[in-house]
């Protein structure tokens, strides 16, 4: 086992001491960890995946479990002792660029990814490197919002990576060697991957980026053992017109010129072939009903609605499909005919929530760039409620104009961007990270430029004179009311973790990684990581000791300070 760049450090430890400790722990390298609750400890079983939400030792999926609550059930680190939390080790990756990885931990082995599709396997106790895989990217890769990667999926003895050049790669979990590689789509047509795959019942599920490049979006399922394509669900159906809706999900007027759109439809036909509709985040999986739930991103071109008349189904929508066949089940569109890039990006979360009659029903949550948390019924996707606005909404749905454009809040990054929410089901609270970034939206007609160039139909610019900030917001999903809110000095992007210790952990662009009381929002602990903490934290336990781990590498989208650190924290 290589020690690599991993260093175990204590508070105030010198580099020499750190090295000494590292060497001392090297003796443990070959010991077997007995820390798992489920499975055979050599591979990830479907049983382990099914029960990941109750597994206080491993962190098996990007968002914790198939419900995507990001709720870690260990309470060893809690409100009473979190002030003593300190770094256990810091691992420095080879890549100092935007870092969005959600660490995955299996039986004491951690898998993290970096920008440009590197994967590292680390000893979760020490941070020592076990193996390092670097995807050889082709010359043509598109990335609208940074060359990000949000992590891997694990299943059996494999680790699965989706790449910027739109490939799905299966790696041997023990060695990092490539077992198979499949093409997901053609990168020269604007397809790329930044999301982590989801592994379920022998399938690897994956969406696609490309809503800024005139793609036709999809979710695909591949065979986990062979890489063979099993099914494809096109997020853009062949009839995208819909109901000519004039209002968004919350009843606000979208200012559409329906007559002009109908005339355009008669002239241009249905725009489905290049209508966008990327899927940026993992689907949640309802195992009982064999359904998956995901949200679909913006239409192409983002800001110019003229070439794409109609509601532009299923862009900006919640969609459910059958897990086994990929067949459509239901959908709900948050914003028909979006011309602001206020699309649906953040991962869905499955909870049991009260419906309009107060009865608990299987529900699905999504936090929008609009600044609302939406609560939908899983049965037919209908909207149960939406939350109070988490950020200022001004001049909402004013149509973009010629440069310099129209001022509107929220800006095109949100509200809530791709940042994953966390849920504490004991409190009925969901935690969302928001941006406040006032923007000008301008529109300019442009022909499809080919798949390797941005096709936005205009521009959005942050207004330099206006203040930007962010917040962490706790929303009661049974009422839609904001329970607590903490303002942060910079727009928030990354992710959040809730734990049974009564805590939520999240990081900021200024380098602070913080723990809050999940019931009240009281800040209980902070650590300065030296670079933007813009990645979702994970929790795990090895040899009876709980750890919280997070990436601190900054972010391209909000241009926070770059770094290359994976930092694991624990108590003495």
């Amino acid at each position, binding site marked *: 086992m290589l020690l690599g760049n991993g260093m175990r450090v204590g508070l105030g430890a010198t580099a020499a001491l750190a090295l000494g400790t590292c060497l001392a722990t090297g003796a443990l390298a070959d010991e077997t960890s007995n820390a798992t609750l489920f499975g055979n400890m050599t591979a990830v079983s479907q049983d382990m995946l099914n029960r990941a939400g109750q597994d206080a030792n491993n962190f098996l999926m990007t968002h914790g479990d198939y419900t995507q609550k990001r709720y870690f059930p260990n309470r060893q680190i809690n409100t009473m002792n979190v002030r003593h939390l300190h770094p256990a080790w810091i691992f420095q990756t080879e890549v*100092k*660029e*935007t870092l969005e990885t959600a660490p995955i931990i299996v039986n004491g082995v951690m898998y993290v990814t970096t920008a*440009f599709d590197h994967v590292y396997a680390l000893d979760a106790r020490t941070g020592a490197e076990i193996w390092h895989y670097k995807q050889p*990217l082709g*010359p*043509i*890769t*598109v*990335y*609208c*919002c*940074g*060359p990000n990667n949000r992590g891997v999926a694990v299943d059996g003895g494999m680790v699965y990576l989706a790449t*910027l050049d739109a490939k799905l790669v299966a790696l041997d979990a023990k060695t990092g060697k490539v077992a198979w590689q499949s093409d997901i789509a053609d990168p020269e047509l604007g397809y790329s991957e930044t999301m982590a795959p989801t592994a379920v019942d022998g399938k690897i599920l994956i969406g696609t980026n490309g809503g800024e490049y005139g793609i036709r979006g999809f979710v695909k399922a591949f065979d986990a053992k062979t890489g063979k394509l099993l099914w494809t669900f096109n997020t853009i159906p062949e009839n995208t017109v819909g109901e000519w809706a004039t209002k968004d999900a919350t009843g606000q007027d979208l200012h559409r010129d329906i007559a002009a759109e109908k005339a355009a439809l008669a002239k241009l036909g249905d725009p489905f072939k290049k209508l966008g509709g990327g899927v940026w985040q993992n689907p949640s999986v309802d195992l009982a009903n064999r359904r998956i739930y995901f949200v679909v991103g913006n239409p192409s071109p983002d800001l110019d609605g003229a070439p794409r008349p109609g509601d532009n189904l299923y862009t900006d929508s919640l969609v459910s499909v059958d897990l086994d066949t990929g067949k459509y089940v239901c959908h709900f569109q948050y914003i028909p005919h979006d011309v602001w890039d206020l699309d649906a990006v953040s991962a869905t979360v499955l909870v049991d929530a009260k419906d309009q009659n107060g009865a608990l029903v299987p529900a699905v949550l999504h936090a929008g760039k609009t600044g609302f948390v939406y609560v939908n019924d899983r049965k037919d996707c209908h909207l149960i409620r939406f939350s109070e606005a988490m950020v200022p909404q001004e001049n909402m749905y004013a149509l973009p104009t010629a*440069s*310099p*454009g129209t001022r509107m809040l929220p800006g095109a990054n949100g509200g809530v961007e791709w940042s994953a929410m966390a849920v504490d089901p004991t409190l009925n609270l969901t935690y969302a990270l928001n941006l406040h970034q006032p923007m*000008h939206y*301008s529109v*300019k007609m*442009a022909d499809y*430029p080919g798949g*390797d*160039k*941005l*096709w*936005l139909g*205009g*521009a959005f*610019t*942050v*207004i*330099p004179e206006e203040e930007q900030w962010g917040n962490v917001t706790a929303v009661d999903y049974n009422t839609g009311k904001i329970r607590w809110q903490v303002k942060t000095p910079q727009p928030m992007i990354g992710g959040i973790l809730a734990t049974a210790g009564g805590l939520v952990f999240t990081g900021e662009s200024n380098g602070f990684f913080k723990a809050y009381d999940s019931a009240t929002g009281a800040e209980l602990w902070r650590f300065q990581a030296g670079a933007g903490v813009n990645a979702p934290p994970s929790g795990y336990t090895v040899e009876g000791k709980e750890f919280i781990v997070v990436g601190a590498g*900054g972010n*391209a*989208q*909000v*241009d926070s300070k*770059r770094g290359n650190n994976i930092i694991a924290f624990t108590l003495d």
Partner: protein
Amino acid sequence: MPTWLFAIFALMAFIVPAHAEDIAEKATLCASCHGENGVPIDQTIPVIWGQNAGYLYVELRDFKRGARTDPIMSQMATGLSREDMMALAEYFSKKPWPNLGQKPADAATAERAQVIANSAQCSQCHLAGFLGASLVPRVSDQNHDYLLATLRAIRSGERGNNNWMTELMKAYSDQDMAALAAYLAGL
């Protein structure tokens, strides 16, 4: 027409589809303007040594298609196949970025440039240090005069092979662009 320009046009006649073994030979023609050691012969010409391969390929392709025009480059790209363009792009991307000796911008200029860069969200594509990757060009330490001319040409639409950038640049004044060019050139 300057003599060197005439020489380049004369040399163009010799461009034939490239093979791996003669890419280096073909690249000598590029050196006439872009420099034998990677330092272009004047400040209006971009550095291509160490530039990102995807970007170099797409620009050559766009010159050939007419999506981007330039009296020399449009002619130069005419006879190139996709394989030629990919090979040339790969060849130059592997060269080291040259030292142009450009001075850092003063503090006030740098501050103004950073405000604009934040507003335009340059980092989303051009990344930390403005180094870009794949299809997105490195713009840090690029030739100052080329940067300034390019920003203006993009804004006016004269360089029209990226309509998103044209729309984005409309939000910024001549003074903003002067600050950006000075800042980027000095990084």
